[in-house]
C-alpha cells in the first residue's frame, strides 16, 4: 500500500488533533503492592503514562513485570495501592477508591481467550447487550450475526468455541468486546502461542477493526514486531516493579499493510525498541526471572 508516503515530522501525531476521540486513559503515579502472606511484592512502582483517545498503545516488557497488573487495575479486576487512573477525565480508581468498577466501557480480551464454551459464537457475542438489557434477545442475536459476518465469521456463528480454530475464536472474542461499544479495548497477549501465519492474519484483522472503530487499544505483548506493526506508541516498561522506561512513537501512516514490516523505517524502530527491551531482559534474567517469552 502507500508505504512510501512521507512520514510526519517527529513528535507530530499522525492523527489530526481536532479528532477528540473518546477513551483517553491517564495513569498517574500508580503503585501496586501485593501482600501475599505478609511479604510485600511491588508489582508496579510509580508508573505514569498518558494514552490519547483512539490511540493504539502497546506495552512491552519482560515476563512477570507487572504489565498485567496495570491492565487488571484499568479493567477493575484488582485494586491499586496508590496513584490514580482516569478514563476521559473521570476517576476510575485512585485515593479513596482503590478498585475501579468493572464496566462495558473497558472490555478485556484475555490471554488464553475467555469465550464461554457453552455458548455458540453468536450467543457469546450477543451476551453483553442481553445482560445489560440494551437489546432484546432476538435483536442482540441479529446484531451479533451481523458483526460476526463483518469480521469474516458469518459461517461459524452457530459453532461452539471448541469447534473453531484459535484464530477464529480470538476474532470472535474481539467482536464480543466491540458489540458493547467500549471506549477502550484491553488486550493481554491475545495472540500468544499462535503461529506466525495466524498471527499475521490476526494483526490485519485487528488493524482493519481499529481503522473502522478507532477504539483506544491497550495491548500487552512480548512480540516486538507486533508492537511496532500495530501500535501508535510502544511503551517499554522495566522489569518488576513495573515503571515506564521508554516510549517509542511509531509514525507509520495508517492504514498499514503487512509490507511495512520490511521497510527501513520499521527496521530502525525495531532496533530502537529492541535495545531498550534487551536491557530490561538482562536485568530480569539476572533478577532470577528465567522466563522471557
Amino acid at each position: 500500500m502507500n508505504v512510501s508516503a512521507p512520514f510526519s515530522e517527529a513528535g507530530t501525531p499522525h492523527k489530526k488533533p481536532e479528532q477528540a476521540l473518546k477513551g483517553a486513559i491517564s495513569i498517574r503515579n500508580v503503585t501496586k503492592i501485593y501482600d501475599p502472606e505478609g511479604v510485600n511484592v511491588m508489582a508496579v512502582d510509580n508508573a505514569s503514562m498518558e494514552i490519547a483517545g483512539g490511540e493504539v498503545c502497546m506495552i512491552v516488557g519482560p515476563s512477570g513485570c507487572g504489565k498485567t497488573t496495570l491492565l487488571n487495575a484499568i479493567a477493575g479486576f484488582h485494586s491499586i495501592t496508590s496513584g490514580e487512573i482516569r478514563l476521559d477525565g473521570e476517576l476510575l480508581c485512585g485515593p479513596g477508591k482503590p478498585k475501579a468498577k468493572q464496566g462495558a466501557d473497558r472490555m478485556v480480551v484475555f490471554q488464553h481467550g475467555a469465550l464461554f464454551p457453552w455458548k455458540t459464537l453468536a450467543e457469546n457475542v450477543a451476551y453483553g447487550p442481553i445482560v445489560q438489557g440494551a437489546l432484546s434477545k432476538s435483536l442482540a442475536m441479529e446484531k451479533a450475526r451481523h458483526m460476526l459476518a463483518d469480521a469474516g465469521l458469518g459461517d461459524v456463528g452457530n459453532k461452539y468455541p471448541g469447534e473453531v480454530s484459535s484464530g477464529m475464536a480470538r476474532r470472535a472474542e474481539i467482536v464480543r468486546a466491540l458489540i458493547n461499544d467500549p471506549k477502550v479495548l484491553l488486550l493481554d497477549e491475545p495472540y500468544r502461542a499462535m503461529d506466525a501465519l495466524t498471527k499475521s492474519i490476526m494483526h490485519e484483522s485487528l488493524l482493519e477493526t481499529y481503522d473502522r472503530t478507532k477504539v483506544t487499544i491497550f495491548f500487552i505483548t512480548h512480540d516486538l514486531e507486533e508492537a511496532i506493526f500495530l501500535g501508535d506508541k510502544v511503551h517499554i516498561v522495566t522489569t518488576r516493579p513495573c515503571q515506564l522506561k521508554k516510549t517509542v512513537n511509531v509514525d507509520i501512516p495508517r492504514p498499514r499493510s503487512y509490507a511495512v514490516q520490511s521497510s527501513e523505517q520499521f527496521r530502525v524502530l525495531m532496533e530502537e525498541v529492541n535495545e531498550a527491551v534487551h536491557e530490561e531482559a538482562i536485568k530480569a534474567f539476572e533478577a532470577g526471572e528465567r522466563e522471557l517469552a
Partner: protein
Amino acid sequence: MTDVAQSSSGAYALPRRRSKLEKLIQNVSFWRGVTAVIVFLCVWEVGSRMDEWLGEAWTVPFVGLIPPPTDVAVAWLEVLPKAGYWNSWYESFRRVLSGFLVAMALGIPFGLLLAVNKYFRDLFFPPFEILRPIPPLAWVPASLIFWPTNEMSIAFVTFLGAFFTIVINVLGGARSIDVRYLRAAQSMGASQWHLFSRIVLPATLPSIFTGAAVGMGITWEVVLAAEMISGGGTQGGGGLGFFIWNSYMGGSLTQIVVGMISIGIAGFLSSSAIRALGDWFMPWKRMF
C-alpha cells in the same frame, strides 16, 4: 443439532453422513468388544463344564462351581415371563430413581450454595465433611431405627449414597470455574443472577453430570445391599437385591447369576441414560 451436514457453506467437504448403526458395524473396537465377550462366555462355559465332560478330577477351581452360561440362559428364559422377576426390576428401579432424584434435587443447590456463599460454606462444610466419609451402609442400622418403615429407611440410605457424591462434585466444579469467565461476564455487565444462571451453572454442568454418574453407581450398590438386608417380608421387600437373596436362600445358583447379570444390565442402562442426558444438556461437549 447433530446434523453436521447442515453447515450452509460448501467450504467443508464432508464425507457422506453414516447412520449410527453403520458406524457401529464399521467400527473395529466394536467387533473387538464383541469377540472379547464371546471368548469370555466360551471360557466360562468350558471351565464350568470341565468336570461334566472329563470327570470330577478336572473340576476347575472357582469357575467349576459356577453354573455355565447356557444354564444361566435357560434359567433366565424361565423367569422372563414371570411377573415377580419384572416386579423386582421395577422395585429396584423405583428406589434407585427416587433416592437419586431427591439427592440431585437437594445436592445440586446445596453444592452450589456451598460454592458461592462463603458464610454458608463456613457453617455447613465442616459438618458435611464429618458425615461424608461414613459409608452409606453404616447408616442402615440407625436408619432402620429412625424411620418407621423399612421402605423409608431404604429410601433414606439410598439418598445418602448419592447425595454426598453429588454435593462434593458440584462444589468442586463450581469452585474451579475459570476466573476469566466471571470477569468477562462482569465486565459485560452481568448481574449477580446472570452470573449465576448463565455462567456458574453451565460451567458446573460437567461436574454435575460426573457427580450424577458416580452417584448413580453408588445408589445401585446401596439399594441392592439394603434390599438384601431388609430381606423381603411384607414391606420394603422385593427388588433385584432380594431376588438374589431369595435365590441364595432357595439354593438356586443359576438364579443368583441371573440376578447378578440383571443388575449389570440395569446399571448399564442407568449410566447410558445419564450420558444421553448429559449430551443433551451440554451440546458444546458433544464434539470432544
